[in-house]
């Protein structure tokens, strides 16, 4: 089966900055593959381990340096990769990103055949919307499941059985092909990539599609929302920490502090 894994290169959240003039995230600094994407790649591995033949393609939309997310994807099991990159894609909001991906997927499927499944991370840790997979699924008219913990083929081979965890309990959904599934973190760390693949990945040439390749003569979608202003918030708090040898006495002190501060 053919699976497309959509990944994203995100800024290191400890070091992220915004560009003053464009009011966009500065994507030139330290960055990494969004951690949730590794669980999407692990979903591919789960199917392979169960004996399913999978050809996995990793795709990302981003500036040139986003190619490292694709290198990481290859190292974690993607067979091939594709970068969607163009100045015209900068500052894309949710809908624009989904439209670009939709069109690119159309082009990819025209060329190499349909994807049975599209896997994504449940959210990216920059925007953190967690909405792109659902938006994309609806645009494509495909079945959808979000926040998957695990997946396996159904007996009839026509769907994925998706395990989701939510407030109602563990739920199992049957999600027929072609589908879009987003993965969240589960209790198992993703498999560490093989060293050989990491080495190969670092020197691989990744093909690039630009706006012209994807849209041809058609108009490129415009973002309909934009950041107009931003500020950094210092999240540190001045803390009053009790550090007594006698911890029980310290606990009493703490209780009194909280009472005096009208916190209780």
């Amino acid at each position, binding site marked *: 089966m053919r699976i497309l894994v959509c990944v994203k290169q995100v800024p290191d959240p400890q070091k992220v900055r915004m560009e003053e003039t464009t009011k966009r995230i500065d994507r030139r600094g330290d960055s990494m593959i969004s951690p949730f994407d590794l669980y999407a790649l692990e979903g591919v591995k789960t199917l392979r381990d169960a004996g399913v033949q999978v050809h996995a393609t990793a795709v990302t939309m981003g500036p040139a340096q986003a190619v490292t997310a694709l290198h990481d994807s290859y190292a974690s099991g993607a067979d091939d990769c594709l970068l969607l990159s163009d100045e015209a894609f900068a500052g894309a909001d949710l809908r624009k990103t989904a439209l670009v991906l939709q069109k690119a997927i159309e082009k990819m499927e025209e060329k190499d055949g349909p994807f049975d499944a599209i896997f994504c991370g449940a959210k990216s840790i920059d925007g953190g919307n967690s909405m792109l997979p659902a938006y994309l699924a609806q645009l494509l008219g495909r079945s959808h499941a979000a926040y998957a913990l695990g997946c396996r083929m159904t007996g009839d081979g026509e769907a994925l059985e998706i395990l989701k965890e939510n407030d109602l309990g563990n*739920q199992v959904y049957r999600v027929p092909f072609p589908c879009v599934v987003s993965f969240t*973190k589960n209790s198992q760390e993703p498999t560490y990539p093989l060293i050989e693949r990491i080495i190969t990945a670092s020197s691989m040439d990744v093909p690039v599609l630009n706006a012209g390749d994807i849209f041809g003569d058609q108009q490129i979608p415009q973002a309909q929302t934009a950041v107009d202003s931003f500020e950094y918030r210092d999240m540190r708090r001045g803390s009053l920490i009790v550090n007594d040898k006698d911890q029980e006495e310290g606990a009493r002190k703490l209780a009194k502090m909280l009472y005096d501060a009208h916190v209780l």
Partner: protein
Amino acid sequence: MNEKKNVMVFAETMEDGRLSGSALGIAGAGARLAALTGCGLDVLVLGRDNGEAIRGLSAYKIDRIISVEDPFLTPGNIDVYVKELSKISEKFSPSALLFPMTLYGRELAPRTAALMGAPVISDCVACDTTPEGKIKWTRLSFGGYISAGVESDYEGTRFVSIRPGIFEKPEKTDGEPELIREEADLDKADLKSVLMRTIKKAAQGMLAVEDADVIVAGGRGAGGSAGFKLIRELADVLGGAVGASRVAVDKGWIDHSALIGQSGKTVAPALYITCGIAGSIQHITGMRNSGCVVSINTDPRALIFDVSDYGIVGDLFQVLPVLTEEIRHIKAS
């Protein structure tokens, strides 16, 4: 811009028809937007039996409640739910359609918006007008480190997803909202993903973290169910809910619904007490907007203390029993 059309709020309901904990707060966000744009406020309820939800909403200053009932309208049938939502949205053409940024809302909002060709502004915590008279939504990203003001020129129904627990409920009213009952117009053929089974949890009826004003959360330091027993005792004395970091959930010490953080819930209670939580960015992301943060950890250099207002360096097994007892006395007197 469709200024005469009302703001519409999607009121999330549970399987049993009750309003979810987020619903009235999202209605409050709608009230705020309606006030800023000079229009009315509608609340939309979709479900099997909306009686209780309608009763719950009727006490508040809402212009219209739009109710759609059908046995097939359950959260598990999300494909059908989305289609119905989009039909209502087309029919009433609200200036904005507000959703909660809950697990469920995060699927409903984008899918309905995609059907309508609309953008989505998500995870909003404040709403203001600009000097030019446009609506500006404030959203937080990177765990609250960056606050951004987002505007849109989109002229159709604006889809906005609101962070729960931030906006105040709407004002109460002695009057009654107008109740409009819409016929459901479902096509079961729309159903693609099918819920096959739910393995229900044993512990029901406990206060959920997203509904709590006080949360006591446990992490690695809790060590197991014994630690969580102490945590629950403190939560009970404070009338709060029990939360957890990823480690505690992964180790099975507590249910996933208690998870607070990057892959769990984002909460902002008035009081958040951490017990044996180190303070990874993944956890802090979910709680850093809490009113007052108090932390218990054996490591004086634990990162959690950086985002705490008060704390104690100590072992929760020694600290919690005494702290709980002291607070019990304080509350009794």
